[in-house]
């Protein structure tokens, strides 16, 4: 979003209450030795998401850090040059001269407050200036933890987990979108080779590949361990939504600008088969059961307009929006049923968002937003069309289904939002974590750490702390 581009970095920190994890101090002194007139201390930093101790000292308001210690933790390569050292990281070249207050950064001089110093055979350099020069990212959170990251993407708009170890970070540009595969542990990123007109990537359940359409409507698959996407269908019909089968072998999609048709593509033979063509327009939020036989989706009916024959100036037009709320439908493929039709599961006038079907499609859950209610709730509806409230303790902002559990971002107290885990089998709701109220989105995937978007920045939970993953 445009707003977040202009935001100042908000640094999240976990202030630990009764939690079992303990917050590390940014500069906890574990040892101290006198060296000339400065006091060298071993300070704790989180470098590339890992807690490490690095020798530092403080002078003229600046923290100087052991060049060798930080460089090795950060992954920067050092080599001796005449009268100094050269450091290389991510294509940046930084040259330091002993006792000099000049850093040569990619060929340009940069002035330091404190000259590069050598103490007992160890070279020290201004921490912030050196990190910046290498193009790395330094940020301190509110609990005092200092994070130093070698690979942090800028201006990430949204992410999705690819698998339990990596996520896809998307950066919207003026002409298209760039997608990066980010290793949530090492922080290393790799840009995926997709065309500018690619639709949003839809990750396969096996976490190894994703599918998308290009501007023509053709379908592509990109394997995460390869570089180039492969076209798997030349069909140019508009495809508003793509969905993988549970075994990651087939791609289902809505077809047509009004999403009227449900179709299936076997990407290995480029064969498209229509599943449902009932002339019902504006299907959306498609889910497919694990056995590939049941399809759940919403249908939104446009309002009815009556326009008379009077002159334009008379504004002889009337709109009836009754019954335009989305409704949940279910269609089960069964050749033995004559004139098999989709079944409408809901008729309520509430708005519906975050619609997910259970893996066997026996239940469909969604966030119900009713005009009359002061808060949104999580409800489920079964094949018997009975709607049951699953969570109504507080206003639900976002819901996602992962590993057969619901994860909700909800209203909390004044300053905070909460994450709840809800078990649809028992209706048990458990408050997991408290977040700032302006966290805009949570990202949950079975087996992966939780990630959040706050003020336009991505954070991933690491041992009870929020590691910054974008800037």
């Amino acid at each position, binding site marked *: *979003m*445009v*707003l977040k581009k202009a935001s100042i970095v*908000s*640094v*999240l*920190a*976990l*202030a630990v*209450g*009764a*939690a079992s994890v303990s917050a590390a101090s940014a500069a906890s002194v574990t040892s101290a030795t006198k060296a000339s007139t400065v006091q060298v201390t071993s300070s704790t930093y989180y470098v590339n998401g890992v807690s490490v101790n690095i020798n530092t000292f403080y002078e003229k308001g600046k923290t100087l850090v052991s060049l060798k210690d930080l460089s090795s933790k950060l992954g920067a390569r050092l080599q001796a040059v005449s009268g100094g050292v050269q450091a290389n990281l991510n294509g940046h070249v930084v040259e330091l001269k002993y006792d000099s207050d000049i850093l040569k950064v990619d060929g340009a001089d940069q002035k330091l407050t404190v000259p590069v110093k050598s103490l007992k055979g160890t070279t020290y350099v201004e921490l912030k200036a050196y990190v910046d020069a290498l193009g790395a990212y330094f940020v*301190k959170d*509110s609990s005092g933890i200092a994070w130093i990251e070698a690979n942090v993407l800028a201006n990430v*708009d*949204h992410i999705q987990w690819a698998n339990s170890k990596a996520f896809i970070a998307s950066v*919207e540009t*003026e002409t298209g*979108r760039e997608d990066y595969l980010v290793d949530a542990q090492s922080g290393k990123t790799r840009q995926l080779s997709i065309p*500018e007109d690619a*639709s949003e990537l839809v990750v396969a359940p096996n976490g190894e590949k994703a599918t998308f*359409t290009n501007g023509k*409507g053709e379908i592509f698959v990109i394997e995460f361990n390869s570089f180039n996407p492969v076209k798997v269908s030349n069909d140019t019909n*508009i495809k*508003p939504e793509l969905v993988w089968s549970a075994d990651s072998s087939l791609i289902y999609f809505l077809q047509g600008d*009004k999403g009227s048709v449900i179709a299936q593509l076997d990407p290995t033979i480029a064969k498209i088969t229509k599943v449902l063509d009932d002339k019902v327009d*504006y299907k959306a939020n498609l889910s497919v059961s694990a056995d590939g036989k049941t399809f759940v989706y919403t249908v*939104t009916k*446009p*309002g009815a307009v009556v326009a008379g024959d009077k002159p*334009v100036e008379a*504004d002889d*037009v*009337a*709109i009836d*929006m009754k019954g*335009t709320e989305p409704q949940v439908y279910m269609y089960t493929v069964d050749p033995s049923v004559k004139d098999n039709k989709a079944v409408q599961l809901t008729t309520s006038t509430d*708005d519906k*968002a*975050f619609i997910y079907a259970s893996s066997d499609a026996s239940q469909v859950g969604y*966030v119900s*937003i009713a005009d009359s209610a002061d808060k949104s709730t999580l409800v489920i509806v079964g094949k018997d069309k009975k709607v049951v409230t699953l969570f109504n303790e507080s206003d*639900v902002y*976002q819901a996602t289904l992962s590993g057969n559990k619901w994860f909700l*971002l909800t*209203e909390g107290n004044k300053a*905070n939002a909460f994450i709840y885990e809800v078990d649809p089998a028992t209706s048990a709701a458990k408050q*997991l974590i*408290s*977040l700032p109220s302006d966290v*805009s989105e949570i990202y949950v995937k079975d087996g992966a*750490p*939780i990630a959040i*978007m*706050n*003020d*336009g920045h991505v954070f991933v*939970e690491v041992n*009870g702390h*929020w590691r910054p993953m974008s800037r």
Partner: protein
Amino acid sequence: MKWFKSLTVAAMAIALVTSTVSVVGAASSLKGKIVINGSSALLPLTLQAANEFKKANPKVKISASAAGSITGPQSVRKGIADIGAVDWDASQDVPGFKKFEGQVAHKVAVIPFAAVVNKNVKVDNLTTKQLQDIFSGKVTNWKDVGGSDADIIVVNRAFGSGTRVNFQMKALQGTDFISKGNNYKEVKSSGDMKTAVETTPNAIGYMDLVYVTSNMKALQINGIAPTEANVINGTYKVWGFGYYMTKGQPDEVTKAFIEYIQSAKFQNGSLKKLKFIPISAIK
């Protein structure tokens, strides 16, 4: 879950150091209703955007309908819609319609239009003059524009259609249509136009480029094919912006929705997926 194991205690709280900008996100406090009416061509785009916008702003309810472009600004003027979707800038005079005073036009998409003929028509290209002559009824036989000896069946959209306004302005450069005759048909929607051109031998009509099917032929105009690339490179002139009209400046909720549909995320994502052209592509 690995994450869950490490966070079994519910008392974990998170604190901010600095936060100067509020993000419109899942926890958005935006609340309200938006009613949108007008262009049928823009309805799929509107409903797609509404579906996505709702995920970030669940408390905003969006209802949409379509009955032709002119009903969009009419509904806004009458006060029964917050947004009028229209295929031309209704704050300006266009052929057949006076401007809607006090309404503000917000560009949301680029819509290319194509002159289309039945597959039996041998002509592949027409000049602006030939199009003007055909749609005004001066030329009535395909042989006069390089085709076979057969009467031309003109299929026109009904008065009030945004596609009609754009075709008249951009392809016919403002000249008039014929309005009656044995070889003249008038249809009420893009779907009806598609059916008419596909099933009527020797027919000529026009429609949004996105609706052109393999069962008809899109003509070159002045030797330029109707393609997205030719619209963007400026050589194909028969296109228009799709607009959202509001009564004055929109309120906070309506403004947020318009900004979403104009955002790079939507313009380069779902808008392209629905085969519209982003507004930023036109320099």
